[in-house]
């Protein structure tokens, strides 16, 4: 422990909300003691390996497993047909594009007669060692009848090849929100300026550094139960869904997510390997474990993004946006996983960004392709939306020859503290967008940068300086059940927490959140220390084990603090209320005469007669005869909390790039992010979350692409081909923040897990386009690799040979 961890000043080990605090999670990790799923020793475990389809679209004629079965060390080999009897239901879709009807194909953990993407499981080997299982896998022979593959969503739209016969089309749904169609048309008819752009959200690999891993263990004491270890973001929901699909009764299944090495949405799933390990452990009556190879991860894990965006803006002569019209084409991949069809829809209401837009229309068509399913990846729909509107707003600025900061300023929704009904659907909680922009401009040295840019351009340098701005608003705090249902949610999310005082005055908190790097153990202890006035070190936080923790649904969508953390705050209030009744009873005072400070109750004005809450906890446990009539022994409380609204974090990011005209290379020289996540619980963790998000957005902008050939074969499933940025490709960051408390929860917090990934990609591409504007470049597709940028420059030159002389 370092001295920075717990401020000595207060002498009682108390920490406060808002105080920078280093993490208690760190030490076991730094010592190499923290165990992730594949680190958990399981005596007697068998190893599963999965044979995956090598074709994007094919019928399975036959699978010959004979040689594999007799391979040394092999215990069993199964095909989809062999395991058909193991499944009692299909994994459901949890967010649908209501009220549009959703056409969704049937799918199971393992293919039976047909494969629809490279990577789909077709057979499994279970062996005594991992190496034996891998060896045997190679001996399986699958005879495929290869079908033409659909790899682009545009192609899917034509129904040239229909992937799922039973649906008769590749179109999953068309979802339309038009706010007064006449006003949208009228706005475009009357517009002084219009912008029309197409953007491609390339498929990205979430690529958490820990791939997935699973281990299913039959209850060693008998009794028919199972423990399933999985690298998941949703232990509880996984248990429910496995119960519904594999048929192990929910109460007989314990799911533990040990240390989880990153998720970013990719581990918000019930994956085939979880179902398979559980079913095989049941069948073979032995523990069965599996770990994903990295190159397997590239095809077996969900992909992120995957959209084609057509966006149009109309604006009046002052640059005031009068309408936004969007057509979105979503690439769902081969079938729907938990949230697949909902991802484009989640982003839908954010295509007007943080701007006061009177008329808005969006149509989303999503289609099936012969690629891995897409689903939630850091930001899930909002980075895509932000990218489109922020690129379009820059397009408007260029059209009007107006500064991109000014155009944003003119269009921001004016400040609001408690609810703003936007043109589309959900009311925002609180917002004040301009100060974040101002701060970002200040931190970036914007005026100076523009001067440098002008000088550089005047000098005729081939190294172009570009400055890109992106302002965003997004939605977090997934929970409000009524709003979720209205938005197409097929399940509810809420926050849960239990606070239990032990007789010694120490506290055990159990929470429904499932951290995988976000530091909830630190943060939750911080909340309790602040609220209850107890030493931080006396609070233990337990989670991610369905046998221990209350049902918390999942960790994702930056919801943990504003829903699960808020639930904990509410629970603390309940504990205080009970303790206060007890204190009043013992002090023979009226409750109204008591005050509670730093963990002690006293009658106002007589601080000398104080009762510490820890002592009251002891009394409530072991001197229960002293409790007031009717009061239950023990000082503990529990909450399931359903908030009134979502939260809407916002901010402005600024990227500064240098683009080499001759090579197309983009160097990111500076990045400023000003984010408003409402009240900050722990600024150390807030900054860390932003840093990580930024690099994911920058990665999408400059490096990352899950590439496929025309037959649907993956070209970049490994980390040698898929370019996760390294330290060498990114700079250090300049962060700022504004604080606009959210009225949606008692902590006033909005969430910050995704913000970094939302503003960064559009800021970077806006900067690249800004740099190359003198060459006539108006758009660069992601990832802006040297080759792509160079080609874009050549195309712009060919189209407008004199562009360079025309200036910006």
């Amino acid at each position: 422990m370092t001295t920075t961890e717990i401020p000595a000043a207060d002498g009682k080990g108390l920490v406060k909300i808002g105080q920078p605090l280093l993490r208690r999670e760190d030490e076991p990790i730094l010592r190499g003691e923290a165990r992730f799923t594949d680190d958990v020793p399981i005596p007697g475990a068998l190893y599963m390996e999965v044979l995956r389809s090598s074709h994007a679209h094919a019928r399975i004629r036959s699978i010959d497993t004979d040689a594999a079965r007799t391979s040394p060390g092999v215990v069993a080999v199964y095909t989809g047909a062999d395991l058909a009897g193991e499944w009692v239901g299909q994994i459901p879709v949890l967010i649908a594009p209501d009220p549009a009807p959703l056409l969704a194909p049937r799918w199971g953990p393992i293919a039976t007669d047909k494969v629809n993407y490279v990577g789909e499981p077709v057979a499994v080997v279970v062996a005594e060692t991992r190496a034996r299982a891998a060896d045997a896998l190679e001996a399986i022979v699958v005879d495929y009848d290869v079908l033409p593959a659909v790899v682009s969503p545009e192609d899917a739209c034509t129904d040239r090849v229909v992937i799922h016969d039973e649906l008769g089309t590749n179109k999953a749904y068309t979802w339309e929100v038009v706010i007064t169609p006449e006003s949208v048309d009228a706005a475009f008819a009357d517009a002084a300026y219009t912008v029309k752009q197409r953007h491609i959200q390339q498929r990205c690999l979430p690529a958490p550094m820990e791939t997935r891993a699973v281990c299913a263990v039959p209850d060693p004491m008998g009794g028919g139960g199972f423990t399933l270890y999985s690298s998941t973001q949703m232990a509880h929901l996984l248990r429910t869904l496995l119960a519904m699909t594999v048929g192990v009764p929910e109460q007989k299944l314990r799911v533990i997510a040990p240390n989880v090495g990153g998720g970013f949405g990719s581990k918000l799933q019930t994956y085939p390997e979880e179902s398979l390990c559980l079913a095989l452990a049941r069948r073979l009556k032995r523990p069965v474990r599996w770990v994903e190879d990295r190159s397997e991860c590239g095809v077996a894990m969900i992909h992120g993004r995957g959209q084609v965006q057509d966006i149009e803006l109309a604006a009046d002569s002052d640059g005031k946006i009068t309408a936004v019209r969007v057509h979105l084409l979503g690439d769902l991949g081969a079938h729907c996983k938990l949230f697949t069809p909902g991802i484009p829809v989640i982003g839908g209401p954010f295509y007007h960004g943080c701007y006061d837009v009177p008329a808005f229309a969006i149509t989303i068509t999503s289609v099936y392709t012969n690629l891995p399913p897409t689903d939630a990846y850091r930001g899930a729909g909002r980075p895509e939306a932000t990218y489109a509107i922020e690129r379009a707003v820059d397009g408007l600025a260029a059209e009007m020859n107006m500064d991109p900061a000014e155009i944003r300023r003119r269009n921001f929704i004016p400040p609001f503290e408690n609810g703003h009904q936007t043109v589309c659907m959900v009311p925002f909680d609180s917002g004040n967008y301009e100060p974040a922009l101002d701060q970002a401009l200040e931190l970036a040295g914007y005026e100076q940068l523009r001067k440098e840019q002008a000088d550089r351009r005047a000098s005729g340098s081939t190294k172009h300086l570009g400055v890109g701005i992106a302002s965003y608003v997004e939605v977090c705090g997934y929970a409000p059940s009524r709003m979720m249902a209205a938005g197409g949610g097929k399940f509810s999310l809420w926050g849960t927490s239990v606070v239990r005082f032990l007789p010694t005055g120490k506290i055990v908190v159990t929470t429904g959140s499932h951290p995988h790097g976000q530091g909830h153990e630190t943060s939750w202890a911080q909340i309790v220390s602040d609220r209850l006035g107890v030493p931080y070190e006396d609070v233990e936080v337990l989670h991610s084990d369905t046998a221990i923790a209350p049902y918390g649904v999942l960790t994702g969508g930056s919801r943990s603090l504003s829903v699960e953390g808020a639930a904990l705050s509410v629970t603390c209030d309940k504990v205080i209320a009970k303790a206060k009744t007890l204190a009043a009873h013992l002090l023979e005072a009226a409750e109204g005469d008591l005050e509670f400070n730093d963990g002690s109750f006293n009658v106002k004005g007589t601080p000398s007669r104080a009762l510490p809450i820890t002592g009251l906890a002891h009394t409530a446990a072991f001197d229960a005869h002293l409790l007031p009539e009717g009061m239950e022994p023990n000082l503990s409380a529990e909450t399931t909390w359903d908030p009134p609204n979502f939260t809407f974090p916002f901010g402005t990011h600024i990227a500064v790039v240098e683009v080499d005209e001759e090579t197309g290379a983009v160097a990111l020289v500076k990045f400023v992010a000003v984010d408003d996540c409402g009240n900050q619980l722990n600024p150390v963790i807030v900054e860390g979350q932003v840093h990580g998000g930024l690099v994911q957005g920058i990665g999408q902008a400059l490096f990352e692409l899950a590439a496929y050939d025309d037959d649907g074969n993956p070209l970049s499933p490994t980390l040698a081909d898929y370019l996760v940025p390294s330290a060498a490709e990114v700079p250090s960051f300049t962060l700022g923040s504004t604080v606009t408390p959210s009225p949606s929860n008692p902590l006033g917090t909005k969430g910050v897990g995704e913000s970094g990934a939302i503003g960064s990609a559009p800021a970077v591409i806006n900067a690249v386009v800004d740099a190359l504007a003198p060459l006539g470049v108006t758009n660069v597709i992601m990832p802006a690799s040297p080759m792509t940028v160079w080609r874009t420059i050549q195309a712009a030159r060919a189209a407008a040979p004199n562009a360079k002389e025309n200036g910006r």
Partner: protein
Amino acid sequence: MKLELTVNDTPHVAEIEPRTLLVHYLRDVLGLTGTKIGCDTSSCGTCTVLVDGESVKSCTVFAAQVNGAALTTIEGLAGDDGLNRVQQAFHDNHALQCGYCTAGMVMAAVSLLEEQPDPTEADVRGGLEGNLCRCTGYHNIVKAVLSCGRAAER
């Protein structure tokens, strides 16, 4: 084949299959699971350990190749007096989130600081190029390593 080596000051003798990768030997035979596996193309660095003081990606060598060597893994870094300075710097600078890259990152940083006791930011970023982290955006990792440099001590 017979393998003899020292890991974290403890000598080990084992009978292994020649195809055993060092990372598998460490994790599966010795149970030193602090060393992670993050890829299958020598790209991520989560498996980094020190072999005779030099950082090595333990997924790229067979255990047989380090016969006779002295290895340090993440489990062997802290002393009786607590975390070593690089580990401590990672904590002090919030340079880890999920922690999956951390062991490799710390080992690579230890080796980098050994070679370049006074690195610049560019040295650190370049030196850690072979270690990927998906959580931290590297900002705090770089800060942590720089804080161990001589310049920071002055």
